[in-house]
């Protein structure tokens, strides 16, 4: 099973991605998906701008997805991460894990998201509701701790 990784400006359709990942494999009994959306932070934000390192973004998420595929018996694994300007309510990231039984799919999706947050080369900058450009979002210690619990 080779994980699928896509880095794109365009939005994605979760239902279509699940259908494509599971098509033609009747051994699959569990599909777990996680989608991350842009929050408005109580009305403070107009948008988030996501900068990324082209090439390394695909490579690094691919490495993390490969680790997940080595750790759990999965039938399918997909990660999509968007870049560019993303407004509150819009989708930023999608992870889908498919397996015979639910535990593996839950854990693999959780693992992939934890490591994607601390290792994938993406940076968020705030665009504020008053029309001005905000600052770069700071990394959270909690995200490092979340990733460390898998090691």
């Amino acid at each position, binding site marked *: 099973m080779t994980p699928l990784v896509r880095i794109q400006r365009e939005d994605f359709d979760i239902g279509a991605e699940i259908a494509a990942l599971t098509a033609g494999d009747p051994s699959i009994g569990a599909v777990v998906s996680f989608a*991350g959306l842009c929050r408005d932070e109580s009305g403070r934000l107009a948008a988030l701008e*996501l*900068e*990324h*390192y082209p*090439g*390394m973004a695909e*490579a*690094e998420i691919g490495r993390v997805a490969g680790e997940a595929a080595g750790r759990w018996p999965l039938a399918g694994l997909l990660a999509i*991460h968007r870049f560019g300007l993303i407004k509150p309510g819009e989708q*930023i*990231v999608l992870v889908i894990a498919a397996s015979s039984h639910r535990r593996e799919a839950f854990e693999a999706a959780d693992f992939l*998201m934890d490591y*994607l*947050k*601390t*290792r*994938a*080369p*993406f*940076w*968020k*900058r705030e665009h504020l509701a008053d029309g001005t450009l905000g600052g*770069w*979002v*700071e*990394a959270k210690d909690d*995200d490092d701790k979340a990733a460390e619990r898998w090691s």
Partner: protein
Amino acid sequence: MSMATAEPASLKLVYFAWVRERIGLADETVTPPAGTATIADLVRWLKTRGEGYELAFENPAVVRAAIDQTHAKPATAITGAREIAFFPPMTGG
């Protein structure tokens, strides 16, 4: 040609987010001085190249690095590197 006296190689540097803004460049090609062996050595040299660099690396422990698109530590050797990136801690997902 002996290894110890190898010619300094030219190296592509790429910068992201506030590291890019402080330095004022998205990328550049440099030839570090002989003896620049690790990421930490490279950062020490870059800090001497102007105010923007000094500001970007004012707290070198915060800035992350990648060698040829793989995460690297300050002590990682840069021998043979083609592209080295510097960027803030990541905030994707």
